[in-house]
């Protein structure tokens, strides 16, 4: 097998290290059995309650809670078997110089088991990929190796261009010579070797379309930028690649996403890690990543015009809209103060109120709920009183949520406060619609120059 593939060194090293890690863990089980101990695996819990935010390192990490998975426990025998099976499949693939996808792992392990127990009606080792994915995560946590390090592939989504050369496999790739296309960030970004580059910072664009526009416009060449897109929710490879650019090359990383709670969350995944998969954050997150835009204050400025403050149709029917708007603004200012915002409120918007009329989208209830999830229900109440959800009975309720600590900084509170005040969101495409030139020559450079970002 290895005869006709010229394996590069990085690949070989990763294989050997991963194999060693797996073997060590699972030979311990064999040891236990030989010593007549009931075999058990100790795995860090991948539960929300065991997900800890480390404010110093600004990372989501797995805590120290552990679960003991025992073969001789009726409820765990099956997952125990699945864990061992998954480990063996990965190990064998590594040994055979293969690069399975997670779907491959599912198929390789799936087979029928003998029918011995009327109580346990499962026919196969696993029935759905959900099951094999879950134990794959357990193997990652157990061995402290990410799937990328175990050379397991996934769909490539992220792309990169810029004045940079890197080695992938046995090839040198020049990221400045990709034409109108871009280099697809490989599933195993740890095997990439940075050869040389010339860049001042990294710009990660959430939207693929905006990435393409900036690329064609020559933005990266002109501004000495490594331009990356995650094309939506970032996959692990893109996150790991961005992290390496920041950590190893010391390049500042700026994230450009929609101005809405969803865009904020994407930034958070790059920066802090994903909540459900916190065990990978240590290697995937980029704690120093900055949210460049689009911010709410980019759209509205700090001083939201009274007539752009949102009032519900009901409110406008019952009360005096003018008076209501004034009250809301006052509450907004008071809440900011109460929640610890000390800066001046003097930022000018990048858009005129006329432009806003054209580009702004009204937030949906779902967006509001997501925002409450980010900052927590206490912050929401400070801004908006009680009214979030109008239930059928006419009662208003807010879902309880502690919020994420990193969104509870005054700067973020101000941004999300403006969102609550205006019930508006803005997609990056809208900024581009105002003119690509505006985006590339005015908005982005000015934001970077004046350090107008959040982190």
């Amino acid at each position, binding site marked *: 097998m290895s005869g006709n593939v010229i394996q590069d060194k990085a690949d070989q090293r990763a294989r050997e290290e991963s194999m060693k890690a797996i073997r060590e863990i699972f030979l311990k089980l064999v040891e236990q059995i030989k010593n007549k101990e009931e075999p058990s695996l100790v795995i860090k819990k991948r*539960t929300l309650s065991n997900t800890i935010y480390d404010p110093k390192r600004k990372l989501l990490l797995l805590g120290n809670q552990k679960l003991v998975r025992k073969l001789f426990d009726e409820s765990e025998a099956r*997952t125990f078997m699945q864990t*061992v*099976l998954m480990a*063996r499949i990965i190990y064998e693939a590594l040994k055979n110089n293969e690069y399975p996808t997670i779907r491959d792992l599912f198929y390789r392990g799936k087979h029928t088991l003998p*029918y011995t127990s*009327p109580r346990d009606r499962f026919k196969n080792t696993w029935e759905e990929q959900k099951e094999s994915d879950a134990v794959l995560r357990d193997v990652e946590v157990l061995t402290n190796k990410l799937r990328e390090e175990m050379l397991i592939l996934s*769909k490539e989504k992220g792309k990169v261009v810029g004045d940079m050369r890197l080695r992938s496999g046995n090839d040198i790739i020049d990221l400045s010579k990709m034409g109108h296309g871009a280099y697809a960030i490989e599933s195993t970004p740890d095997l990439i070797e940075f050869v040389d580059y010339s860049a001042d910072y990294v710009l990660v664009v959430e939207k693929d379309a905006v990435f393409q526009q900036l690329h064609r416009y020559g933005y990266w060449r002109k501004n000495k930028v490594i331009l990356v897109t995650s094309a939506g929710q970032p996959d692990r490879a893109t996150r790991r690649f961005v992290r390496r650019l920041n950590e190893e090359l010391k390049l500042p990383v700026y994230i450009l996403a929609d101005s809405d709670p969803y865009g904020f969350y994407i930034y958070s995944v790059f920066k802090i890690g994903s909540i*459900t998969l916190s065990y990978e954050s240590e290697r995937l997150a980029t704690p120093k990543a900055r949210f460049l835009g689009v911010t709410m204050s980019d759209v509205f400025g700090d001083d939201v015009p009274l007539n752009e403050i949102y009032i519900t149709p009901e409110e406008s029917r019952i009360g005096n809209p003018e008076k209501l708007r004034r009250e809301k603004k006052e509450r907004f200012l008071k809440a900011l103060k109460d929640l610890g915002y000390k800066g001046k409120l003097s930022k000018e918007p990048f858009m005129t109120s006329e432009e806003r009329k054209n580009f702004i989208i009204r937030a949906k209830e779902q967006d509001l709920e997501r925002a409450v*999830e980010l900052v927590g229900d206490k912050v929401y109440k400070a801004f908006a009183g009680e009214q979030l959800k109008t239930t059928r009975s006419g009662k208003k309720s807010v879902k309880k949520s502690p919020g994420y600590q990193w969104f509870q900084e005054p700067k973020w509170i101000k941004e999300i406060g403006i969102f609550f005040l205006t019930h508006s969101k803005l997609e990056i495409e809208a900024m581009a619609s105002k003119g690509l030139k505006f985006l590339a020559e005015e908005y982005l450079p000015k934001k970077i120059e004046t350090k107008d970002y959040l982190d």
Partner: protein
Amino acid sequence: MAETTNESFRQMSPAEFFYRNKEIAGFTSASRAMYQAVREFFENSLDATEVHGILPRVTVQISREDPNNPDFFTITVEDNGIGIPSTVIPDAFGRVLFSSKYKLRQTRGMYGLGAKMAILYGQQNTGKPFEIFSSTPSSKKVYYYKLMIRMDKNEPLVLEEGEWPKSSGWHGTIVKLTLEGEWSKRTKDYISVYLKRTAIIAPYADIIFISPSIEGEGKEPEITLYRRVTTKLPAPPKETKPHPIGVDLEMLKMMIAERPSANMKDFLMRSFQRVGEKKAEEILEKAKIDPRRRASTLTEKELESLYKAIKDTKFIAPSSESLSPIGEDLIKIGLKEVLQAEFVDAVTRKPKSYGGHPFIVEAGIAYGGKLLENLDEIAKDSLKGQQGPYVALLRYANKIPLLFDEKADVIWSIANSEEFSWKTTYKLEQTDVVAVLVHVASTKVPYKGVGKESIAPVEELRKEIEAAVQEVARRLRVYLTKKRKKQEAQEKLRLFMKYIPEIAQNLAYFVTDGKELREASKSLERELLEMAKRKVRAQLEQPEELTHIVPVALPVAEQEGSIEDPSTSEEEEE
């Protein structure tokens, strides 16, 4: 006008009286009459055997003998009992209210009525005489009588008699009665159920039942056989004197009539149990009667004050020697044998009394195995009306199965599944079927009506029945707990066995690095299987938990974080 009346007067004989009121004795319909006739003779046979220490062997045959009268049935019952002295035979079967059982001890027959009622019922419709062969153990001959009852005189009319010398040691009685009846499924059920239930509490008896096929004539007769499975007999009842609390004024007079010349103190001491010198004096002092008075000289008034004095005196509870409980062992043997149940148990409570009458309650329980298919038709009918857990009640009074009026019986009111916590306290499943046997033995069973098919809710009795049923139910629960635990353990082992080979194979890969997996895998598998067995065994040996069975629910698997990710999915499908 009154003087010129033509009204004629005559005395009615007991035979005629009882024949006119034959419903009281159970002869209500053609079906019930056949059942009742079989019962009377069959019970006489058991009284003539087990009460006297003989292992019974009783054959009951029903046949059509008269081709011209297809509704005439001849019932033949043969036993190996003590027989009847030849001189007594005509009276025993030809005179209503003639009996050897007017004694204070527990027998099935008690009133000297049964056989005669059957004979009267038979002869009045068919005109056919009754036939009997009998021989006592000490007799060298077998005697034969063919007789009818003269209803107007309450006298036997002997039509034929005969005797033969006995060559073998045979003793016993064969009776033969022809009556007009009906052979239907109903009749057959009554008799079969009765015999089956008797077989349950008399596993020491051979019972043979030969009956016409219900399909019609020409078919082979059907034979049902309950074989003797033990030679253990219940201890026979002893004759006792009455307990003072149990007598009424009339009985007191009768007792005096038996001992007219005794002085009062002697009379009391000799006629009653639990009355010694002191008690006798105490009673007589209360009644203000001189202990030396002759019994026959008491005036009506003195009799009344004597009766009152007795009622006002405290006595030791009545002796239970006159009772003959079946016993725990025999109940268990019978239930097991006849119902082929997986689990049986029984309890015989200590003797108690009510109103001067001693009684003993016994209960048995049967569960699982072939119980359901071996239950009798009447029990199955009762199950149909229930909601579950299903309770098949087998009621007995003085060893006689009670087949009718189940819902009116105090036993039903205690043990039916709406009243009794079979499910909650005793852990039966909704679909479970359990057979519960209750036997009340007493010198006076408090029946609810003249039909004698259900027992009245006398408080002392009710308490005992409840305690007995609770006790057997509790034992069933202990059994079920153990059994379920065992099943749990077995199922657990099966579950481990499902996954062990897979685990062994995969782990072996790490041991051999992919080479020669078989050996390594087999050895790991052996080790793991051993471990699994040890584990399960250890669990079985844990001390029993008697009161609680916790159904094993699979714990909910560790949940992943529940905060919804705003993204649709972070995991690719490929």
